[in-house]
């Protein structure tokens, strides 16, 4: 049998089957009525062929049994549920029913309220971003205008806030604390040089680095820095591999600023450089500029 066997149509079973194909298709319940009649004739003259059909059926059952695997981990399920909630903007977890919901520990207890808060955050963000968003200067006004981009910003906001609100969460998530180790990890994980990661020269020290899952699915990391000598002054840096899709319509090397829904919270700066997208959440407007200078970005500071 040839790999490129010609057929009348690519999406239909061939009308003429060899005996082997006829028997395999019988085992797989793929025969047309005409082929079924052909099979019955064949079996009447070759009764041993029933054994071949049973063999294929046994193999299929065995493949199913040994490769069934485990259910999706709770973390994956929680990620998809959070994605649904973020995308919906107005939906609540209660609208996602069905058997899958019975296994979700994610929605139990305090986490449930965190997720609900995230949904509300998205709703408020969409409204405020729609009325206030835009790069300072001549940026396209629809940056982060759709649900996908809003979900990214909501994720960045939430993860920044969670890390600063909960030491345990921060230490578990951003578990790489040494600059050298973080540079090596980021270089390997994202595939570009991160020798600029040390920001001592602008008075910021690294707190931790770890992976994160920014909506979009590509490799992403989060890092948190602390202002030297100033307790409580932190900023988050998120770096995501560029999806190379039009979903995030920002110009290369231009810095954009996204206001927070709560004006007392630090704004988010965003830019794309060398196939990576950077998000900085910081009250200090110089931080994004410092990192961009370290990266050698053109196009100036966030205006």
């Amino acid at each position, binding site marked *: *049998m*040839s*790999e*490129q*066997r*010609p*057929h009348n149509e*690519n*999406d*239909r*079973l*061939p009308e003429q089957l060899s*005996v*082997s*194909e006829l028997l*395999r*298709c019988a085992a*797989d319940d793929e025969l047309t009525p005409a082929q079924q009649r052909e099979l019955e004739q064949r079996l009447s003259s*070759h009764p*041993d*062929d029933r*054994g*071949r059909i*049973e*063999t294929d059926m*046994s*193999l*299929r059952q*065995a*493949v*199913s*049994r*040994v*490769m*069934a*695997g485990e*259910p*999706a*981990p709770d*973390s*994956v*399920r929680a*990620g*998809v*549920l959070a*994605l649904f909630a973020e*995308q*919906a903007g107005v*939906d609540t977890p209660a*609208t*996602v029913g*069905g*058997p*899958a919901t019975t296994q979700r520990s994610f929605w139990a207890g305090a986490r449930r309220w965190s997720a609900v808060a995230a949904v509300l955050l998205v709703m408020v963000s969409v409204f405020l971003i729609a009325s206030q968003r835009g790069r300072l200067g001549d940026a396209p006004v629809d940056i982060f205008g759709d649900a*996908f981009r809003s979900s990214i910003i909501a994720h960045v906001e939430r993860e920044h806030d969670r890390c600063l609100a909960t030491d345990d969460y921060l230490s578990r998530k951003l578990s790489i604390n040494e600059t050298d180790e973080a540079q090596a990890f980021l270089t390997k994980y994202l595939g570009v040089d991160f020798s600029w990661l040390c920001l001592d020269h602008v008075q910021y020290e690294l707190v931790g680095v770890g992976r994160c*899952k920014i*909506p*979009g*699915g590509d*490799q992403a990391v989060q890092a948190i820095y602390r202002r030297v000598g100033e307790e409580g002054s932190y900023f988050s840096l998120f770096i995501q591999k560029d999806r190379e899709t039009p979903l995030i319509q920002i110009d290369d090397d231009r810095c954009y600023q996204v206001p927070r829904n709560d004006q007392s919270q630090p704004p988010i700066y965003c830019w794309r450089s060398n196939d990576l997208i950077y998000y900085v959440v910081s009250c200090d407007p110089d931080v994004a500029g410092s990192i961009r200078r370290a990266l050698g970005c053109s196009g100036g500071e966030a205006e």
Partner: protein
Amino acid sequence: MERSEFERLALEHLDSVHRMAMHLAADPDIAGDLVQETYLRALKWAERFEEKGGGIRPWLFTILHNVHRTRLKRESRAPTAVGDFYSPDAGSPEPGAATPAWNLKSLDWEQVDERLKAAIDDLRPEFRVILLLWGVEGLKYRQIAEVMELPIGTVMSRLHRARQMLAVSLEGVVNELGVRAGEVSSGE
């Protein structure tokens, strides 16, 4: 279809989608990313979903495979040339090779689960994925063809060869267990 209904249906197949993502990526982190991206795209394209008789699951698999292909393309992992499939070192039988002359029907499958799993893991991805869509997910040939964007004849031939390769791999087990030989009738 209502969004909530779409989400409910999509979530029912999360285990299947994740299982296939694990087979494709062989890495839990990457598999998680593939699932996340698959459901993101499914949501964005939910309005395009058309029920063709197989439910939402084949459609989710199609998205998953597209996401996976895009990832591979970005990572510049060139697909294996078809010609390599027939390499003597590849351990695969020639297309059209005869079924091994022993009778799988009489095999005690419970005794060979680990060997079978190892044999499946050793299959080239092009064969393994089709075998899993057929054997584990229970998809019809036509649905597999849609998911893999292949002609249905190619699906059939790859599936046949995957089964042949498993049979060859399990031959040693058969010999160890003393399964009776022969009894495969000819007449094609």
